């Protein structure tokens, strides 16, 4: 089967969702669209279950922290359509103070660990997740280390003085 064109994909999404789904960019041919957290599950369900599109494979869920933006956390979904040989990226910008978004575990069981990882590193509350707790970091960690306000380096280390490094 021929590869699904991005233009076709965009028009299918616009036709179904109108203003709710906006095209952001197309870096290296990877279509990137934005939606909001009220509609994200609907959009993912449409992409997964539509007879033509068939984005059945959830490649990854992750997030990005943009401290300078008002809605400072972007949750990113990567989907893959095997039959169409096509990929799409869906971004949702949410409030960084108390980030909440519905869980995609209702569509893919594989979302379970991806959302736990995203919670672990960004502190995003995936509403409806069956078991949202840390997965990679130590259980007693108090911070969400991929957020920019937390230092990358281990704060317990006392021998590393800034002046050794010209800082």
């Amino acid at each position: 089967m021929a590869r699904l064109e991005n233009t076709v994909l965009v028009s299918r999404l616009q036709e179904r969702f109108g203003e709710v789904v906006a095209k952001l960019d197309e870096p290296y041919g990877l279509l990137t669209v934005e939606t909001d957290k009220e509609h994200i599950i609907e959009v993912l369900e449409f992409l997964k279950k539509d007879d033509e599109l068939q984005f059945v494979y959830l490649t990854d869920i992750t997030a990005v922290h943009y401290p300078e933006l008002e809605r400072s956390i972007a949750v990113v979904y990567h989907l893959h359509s095997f039959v169409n040989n096509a990929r799409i990226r869906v971004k949702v910008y949410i409030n960084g103070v108390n980030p909440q978004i519905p869980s995609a575990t209702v569509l893919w069981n594989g979302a379970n660990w991806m959302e736990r990882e995203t919670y672990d590193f960004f502190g995003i509350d995936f509403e409806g997740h069956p078991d949202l707790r840390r997965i990679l970091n130590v259980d007693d960690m108090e911070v969400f280390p991929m957020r920019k306000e937390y230092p990358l380096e281990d704060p317990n280390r006392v021998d590393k003085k800034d002046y050794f490094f010209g800082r």
Partner: protein
Amino acid sequence: MSNIKLAEAPSGVEGSGFFATSLDKVIGLARANSLWPLPFATSCCGIEFMATMGAHYDLARFGAERPSFSPRQADMLLVMGTIAKKMAPVLKQVYIQMAEPRWVIAVGACASSGGIFDTYSVLQGIDEVIPVDVYVPGCPPRPEAILDGIMRLQEVVKNESLNRRNTPEYKALLEKYGIRTNG
């Protein structure tokens, strides 16, 4: 004539048919020349240790013929490689399971100080969770360096008192790490 080298006898009083020395020295000599290693290898330093164990460098020459993969029957814990914070309780558990007398060598930059991994997820040196006797520098250290570390540990073992575990300093050290001591 065999050319097997024997360990040098400790200083003492020798006469015809007898040799007298202190028990500390005899036991120290025996311990130093039969250190059973427990390799705790997590990365590239472990590969160097495999070379150290192999025929070319032959750690067995120093009495460490039998690498023990049970902490119960090991004397010398060799921690080789990056220890993530999530691994720290496991390492501590392994150390607690070892019987006295026990010694620890931190092999390589990561085990000694966290190395290049100055990050929130990596333990900045295993001495944050267990006491260390000898640090071997290098990233990774060559087998010669690991052997040097083991020979230095042998010196430590030879010269420490028989009942190290009962000294107040040692108990205080273990208590600092939150490790229970007997009595």
